[in-house]
């Protein structure tokens, strides 16, 4: 097996045992990237030089007998909306083209401190607004399972990179499903943590009250490993919880799901017609496995979240975005179309710098906050959000986890929805209630569609606040039944996992 195909945990063990070096691992990943990137376009920047140096430094530490940390020598890909000092962070937008952050985000600091090696910055929908990565201002990304399809979004580049074996780990950000939906489309584990578990310092904001950074991985062990590194308090983020983080490796040892109550959602029944039958079949199958592992399947009701979550999300997220994206004005950094008047500097820079979807959301957000509409839209949506939180709280009185499809369909074809943004928004219907309710949720690959080109299909588990250990517990038990997430069958070397 080639080194790039190892899990992060295997890489760490091998590097620490001196079976191979961090430099060899990095070189293997680099050649994998170079071989597949022309086909996938998953990255916006490759940090080969930086990564080589860092890998050599890790090897030096190993040689001297110093522990480089829990991610010693593991290549990691960051979504391009995260600040890594000295490496461009464009958010896949023309308005930030060429902007080089002069500081490290909290997750970058934590990863570097844990011995991780940065491999590159991943493509995304511009400012994380989208569900297909087609709204990147630079280029779309292909789904490694079927390059004619999208990898999902907005963290599509991160998901494609891990699914293709560029690196065993990547970080994405999830505002309405942007980690879980691409994890589903690319057959990976993707975790959206409880709001406030991971610091947002250095994450370019889309919707501040919904954004969370989270991990992609091909094994549950890796997912827990990366989560343990990034889940830390941070005094620079007033919304980052100061609470102590539990040991995320501990729940992996669970023998079964005995005693766990896993809930299906009553309202899903009425929505069956708008969900792909393959998605329902995979969900059903996964629930059967849960039952076989000793879980009790119960039913809860989430009427407000499933009916009104979507319209509320598309009021609240644009509202916050309209304000968060106002700072891109051509005065201090990024694109600046110099004009003779201040007004023209603003209008031209922002008109030229933002893509169509970002403009739509900025304008919607501006509208719903503007004088005379605030109460009718923003405030009402906030009230519904409160109801959703209460509704989930009530549901968790009757269960430990809630199971839902991650997305209504498997990966769709490139170009299929790009001209119908509102229909694309539907891809988030099962994921965004989780962000509105500030909960953690995990998407795992529950199986594949039939047919000539099987596509992965994700299942989403939702836990109460700070319930990440519960999610990892269930995922670890199911991984033993379903197998690890495979590297997509692309190029030469594809081994391991449960490839169909």
């Amino acid at each position, binding site marked *: 097996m080639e080194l790039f195909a190892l899990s992060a945990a295997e890489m760490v063990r091998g590097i620490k045992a001196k079976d191979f070096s961090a430099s060899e691992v990095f070189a293997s990943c680099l050649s994998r990237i170079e071989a597949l990137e022309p086909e996938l376009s998953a990255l916006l920047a490759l940090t080969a030089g930086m990564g080589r140096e860092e890998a050599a430094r890790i090897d030096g530490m190993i040689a001297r007998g110093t522990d480089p940390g829990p991610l010693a020598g593991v290549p990691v890909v960051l979504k391009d*909306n995260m*600040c890594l000092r000295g490496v461009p962070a464009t958010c896949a937008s023309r308005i930030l083209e060429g902007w080089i952050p002069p500081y490290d*985000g909290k997750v970058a600091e934590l990863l570097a401190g844990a011995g991780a090696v940065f491999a590159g910055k991943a493509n995304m929908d511009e400012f994380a607004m989208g569900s297909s990565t087609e709204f990147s201002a630079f280029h779309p990304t292909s789904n490694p399972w079927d390059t004619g399809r999208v990898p999902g979004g907005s963290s599509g580049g991160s998901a494609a990179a891990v699914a293709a074996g560029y690196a065993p780990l990547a970080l994405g950000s999830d505002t309405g499903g942007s980690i879980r939906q691409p994890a589903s489309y690319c057959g990976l584990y993707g975790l959206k943590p409880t709001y406030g578990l991971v610091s947002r310092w250095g994450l370019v904001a889309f919707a501040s009250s919904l954004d969370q950074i989270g991990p992609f991985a091909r094994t549950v062990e890796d997912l827990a490993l990366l989560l343990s590194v990034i889940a830390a308090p941070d005094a620079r983020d007033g919304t980052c919880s100061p609470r102590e983080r539990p040991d995320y490796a501990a729940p992996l040892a669970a023998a079964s799901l005995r005693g766990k109550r896993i809930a299906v959602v009553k309202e899903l029944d009425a929505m069956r017609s708008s969900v792909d039958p393959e998605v329902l079949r995979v969900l059903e199958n996964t629930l059967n496995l849960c039952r076989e592992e000793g879980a009790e399947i119960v039913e809860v009701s989430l009427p407000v979240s499933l009916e009104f979550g979507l319209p509320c999300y598309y009021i609240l997220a644009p509202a916050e975005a309209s*304000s968060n994206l106002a*700072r891109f004005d051509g005065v201090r950094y990024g694109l600046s179309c110099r004009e003779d008047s201040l007004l023209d500097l603003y209008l031209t820079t922002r008109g030229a710098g933002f893509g169509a979807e970002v403009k739509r959301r900025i304008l919607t957000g501006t509208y719903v906050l503007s004088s005379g509409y605030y109460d009718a839209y923003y405030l009402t949506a906030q009230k519904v959000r409160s109801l959703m939180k209460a509704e989930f709280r009530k549901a968790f009185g009757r269960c430990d986890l809630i199971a839902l499809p991650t997305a209504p369909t498997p990966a769709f074809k490139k170009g299929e929805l790009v001209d119908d943004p509102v229909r694309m928004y539907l891809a988030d219907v099962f994921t965004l209630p989780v962000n509105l309710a500030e909960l953690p949720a995990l998407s795992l690959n529950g199986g594949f569609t039939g047919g000539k080109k099987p596509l992965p299909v994700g299942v989403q588990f939702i836990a109460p606040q700070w319930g990440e250990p519960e999610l990892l517990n269930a995922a670890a038990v199911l991984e033993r039944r379903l197998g690890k997430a495979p590297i997509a069958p692309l190029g030469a070397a594809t081994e391991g996992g449960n490839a169909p």
Partner: protein
Amino acid sequence: MTFRYIPVIGLEIHVQLSTATKIFCPCSTDYIGAEPNTNVCPVCLGLPGSLPVLNKRAVELGVRAGLALSCTIRNHTVFHRKNYFYPDLPKAYQISQYDLPLAEGGEIYIPGDDGRPRRIRITRLHLEEDAGKLVHSAADGRLEGAAFSFVDYNRGGVPLAEIVSEPDITSPREAREYVARIRQTVRYLGVSDGDMERGSLRVDANVSVKKTDETSGEVLYWGERTEIKNMNSLRAVERALEYEIIRQTGVLAEGGSLERETRHWNDGEGITTSMRSKEAANDYRYFPDPDIPPIVVTEELLESTRNALPELPWAKERRFAGEYGLPEADAAFMAESLPVALYFEECVKNGAAPLRAANWIRTEVFRVMNEKGLSMDSFPVKPSVLAELVALVEGGKLSTTVAREVFAHLAEGRSLKDALPAAGASPGGLSAEDVEKMVDRVLLANGDVVEEIRSGRDPKGKKIKFLTGLVMKEARGQADAAAVSGILERRLGEGR
């Protein structure tokens, strides 16, 4: 019908809080004279990915000011975003407070135009961040053509408390008194240095004029209000409002109408000019800042802040008048600032008569301070020393003239022991015996005058005054003139 035009004035005062760091980032607030864009970081430059974290001290200072102004402090307070584009606002929104301000519903008393205390209600006090500075010429003062403006974010993010009054102020003089009172209060509290010229206390005025029936008092017409900006001194506040009220009254008296607008006070020309009218009014799209959790003001913080409040200026004035019998003006003068009040009380504690001590401070101490550009804290004459000097004068042992000379030496940094002889004064003053001897000497040397007086040729007492003057001269003023003339009269009477 005759009309009376009554001004209605409300003030918004922005006070820079005396914190070491900015309100949402750990950059220094020490921007005066700093090179442009040096006290900056990802947060106050609005870099992508940066987040604000509230400065605890700013909240504490806000609570302190709120309590001193008798406001109710909210136990949950929220920051909002005020969205608008301007180059001095790096995030294109100002973090401020909207419908849930830190403090509300306070009051303060000022001397009213009728001489009686007037209550001015405080609508609210809220916290917000300052904007950066726009410079319209280069750092060296050169106008860099007319094509550009320059932006410096050193001031951006400095904490401000905005204190908003109700429209309870009815004259420019009252407005001035109100601003002076607020400034004095924030200085007392150590909440701000309140320096208007350097912009750490900035005043905007909302002023309108209502037309009333002179006899019935019935309001016939409310003029639209204007907002006046750029008043950089107490005097400017008063002058700008005087001008604006006359302008508005003039327009109304001629049957014209006013529009709601912002006007700029031009101190040099003594006029206000229109800046922008209501049409351009912005829609700020306020909403709660999702980056900043609501601030919980604990009962504990309220209690400790309340207990740590200093005696406030108005209480001190009352006490000085009551306890020390100072006239109102003197009491106000002694209580004007905390260092002066402390100096005065220290003098009194060291035995100085309050009235005389107050007099000395108002005149001599302030004269020397102004001449030498000193502050009360660095003043070389310690209050205990001034107390000794005042006691000597009070006890008749030193004339005011000589004491002033002694004081001049003290102000040069000499000790009292050295200053007295340097001014030709006897440290212990003159004994009664000394004075008798001087009188003897004068009488002996002026036998002809003595003769004239004794023979009744001094009906107007001119000659006896002449002799008194001679004795006083010999005594270098250290004798009491009335006592000397008493002795003289007695002695001249003896020989008759």
